[in-house]
């Protein structure tokens, strides 16, 4: 009974709050043109990924060797076809799904471990040195090289790409969270929580973590762009998505063989990657400005 009352009470409050917050957030994004464009593109891309089977004109895996390497503007295939006569537009649309999935899951993977490591190392100074030295080791590798090494060790495939990029995200997430925790744990409301006798785990997850979210959200949005780009890079190198999967990086890689006869095979997936990466980056920038209370008052 008490639990239910507590839960309903809490959920009522939090929906009221989150509604308010989202509204405020949208308002400040609206003021920032670049973030606005980013948000619109991101929303469009997510919609395209969700509706892929409905909006794509053809089956992305259906080959038609009679119309190989058709140019842009060919009837029935607006963006032409690839070396097996598969519809480029449909393949690009389905590629959206893969890119978003890989980006999303690798960032979630990185966040899950990075946030916990960051919380622990920021809060418990005894663990700090140990965790941060391990993080330093991971940070010492050039980004894609680390992912490359991990995929080489695990073997090619999308799941392994997700794991590799996730691991690559851990150290930076941990750093970002740690620095926020170091700041928050000195604030009086954390001291107040200690003085009323709250447990460490409550303080970590209920007092400190919720107040870290804004920096984590900003970082995650920007990281999504990097993750999508790196996943495409790995696929381009043949370590990620395997044929016949329509992944942008892999499409660009196979298209490279026909770059003189049919440049659109390489260019279109390239443009798609640029667009999505740009959109997530702009949105991340906008969110940072919107969620940073110091900047908010300055404008």
């Amino acid at each position, binding site marked *: *009974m*008490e639990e239910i*009352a507590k839960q309903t009470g*809490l959920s009522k*409050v939090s929906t*009221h*709050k989150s509604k308010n917050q989202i509204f405020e957030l949208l308002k400040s994004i609206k003021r920032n043109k670049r973030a606005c464009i980013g948000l619109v593109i991101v929303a469009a891309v997510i919609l395209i990924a969700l509706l892929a089977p409905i909006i794509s004109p053809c089956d992305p895996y259906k080959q038609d060797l009679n119309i190989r390497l058709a140019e842009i503007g060919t009837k029935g295939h607006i963006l032409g076809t690839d070396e097996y006569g598969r519809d480029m537009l449909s393949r690009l649309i389905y590629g959206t799904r893969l890119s978003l999935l890989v980006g999303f899951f690798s960032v979630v993977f990185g966040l899950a471990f990075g946030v916990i490591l960051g919380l622990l190392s920021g809060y418990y100074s005894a663990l700090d*040195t140990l965790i941060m030295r391990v993080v330093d080791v991971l940070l010492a590798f050039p980004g894609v090289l680390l992912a490359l090494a991990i995929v080489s060790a695990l073997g090619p495939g999308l799941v392994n790409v997700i794991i590799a990029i996730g691991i690559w995200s851990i150290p930076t997430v941990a750093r970002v969270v740690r620095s926020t925790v170091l700041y928050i744990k000195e*604030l*009086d*409301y954390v*001291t*107040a*929580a*200690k*003085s*009323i*006798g*709250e447990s460490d785990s409550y303080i970590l997850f209920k*007092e400190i973590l*919720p*107040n870290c979210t804004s920096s984590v959200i900003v970082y995650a949005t920007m990281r999504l762009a990097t993750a999508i780009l790196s996943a495409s890079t790995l696929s381009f190198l043949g370590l990620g998505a395997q044929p016949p999967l329509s992944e942008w990086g892999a499409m660009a890689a196979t298209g490279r063989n026909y770059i003189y006869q049919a440049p659109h095979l390489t260019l279109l997936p390239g443009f798609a990657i640029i667009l999505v990466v740009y959109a997530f980056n702009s949105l991340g920038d906008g969110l940072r400005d919107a969620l940073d209370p110091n900047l908010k008052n300055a404008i």
Partner: protein
Amino acid sequence: MENLLEVRNLKKYFPIKKGIFSKTVNYVKAVDGVSFSVKQGQTLGLVGESGCGKSTTGRTILRLYEPTSGNIYMEGQDIVPLGKKDMRKKRRDMQMIFQDPYASLNPRLTAGQIIGRVIDVHKIASGKEKEDLIYHLLDVVGLNAQYYNRYPNEFSGGQRQRIGIARALASNPKLIICDEPVSALDVSIQAQIINLLQDIQSKYNLTYIFISHNLAVEKHISDNIAVMYLGKIVEFASKDDLFANPMHPYTIALLSAIPEPDPKKNSARVKLEGDVPSPINIPIGCRFAQRCPQKKAICEEKEPELIDTGKGHFVACHFGR
């Protein structure tokens, strides 16, 4: 009347660490041997300039900082050796009100949740009973019931401080440490909060340790006042005694610095030269010697002890009358 709290030779040193192996090279001696006692229902004022260790003393008493050495007797029981679990239970009796009402409330919790956490942690009430208790506490501190579901950013500084007071009251404590509870508020609100603190003190028979650098406020609220300088108490007396008959040269200088409302009244102002010495390298002898207008040879050789000069007026000065 019985002593509710007795602090004996409390020390808090913060280590300064350097190098890759975090070797401790030195200590900041923030609190360096403080002893005093407070009777049930009374208010002890802790005064001193910034950095003299008064806030650290307050927080160390609550074991928010682990004391380096010393004893803290709460109703006769030493709380320093208490384990985590026992200490958590003991916290019910000892609460704190913070200086900055903007930093002391979690921005992600509503007023009701902030107060409710104390009730949850100490399993005081639940369900409807808990809710009623929170409404009652809001009422006691003079806040409208409709504020229950509001977030801290919707409140003014004074209202936030009232929430902080309600939180401190929620566990029905015996001792409340007020760490400069009014210095972040503007003057009209200061008066309201101080009156509120006095009201609830008489209502619940609370004992306060009131930390402040504002002597006028201390004069209003305290029964006894301890003057701190560089981590030590230099003078301890009842309020009336201290203001009428200050003995330590530092106290005399402090009292002469209180602004006089009447501009024609010409009071002798004792001006102190120099700065407070660093709490890392505390001078030998009397800590105040370098700045003392009455310095003699002995002051730089021997540290004076806090001695009772009669009627419970303690002073740590070789020449205290």
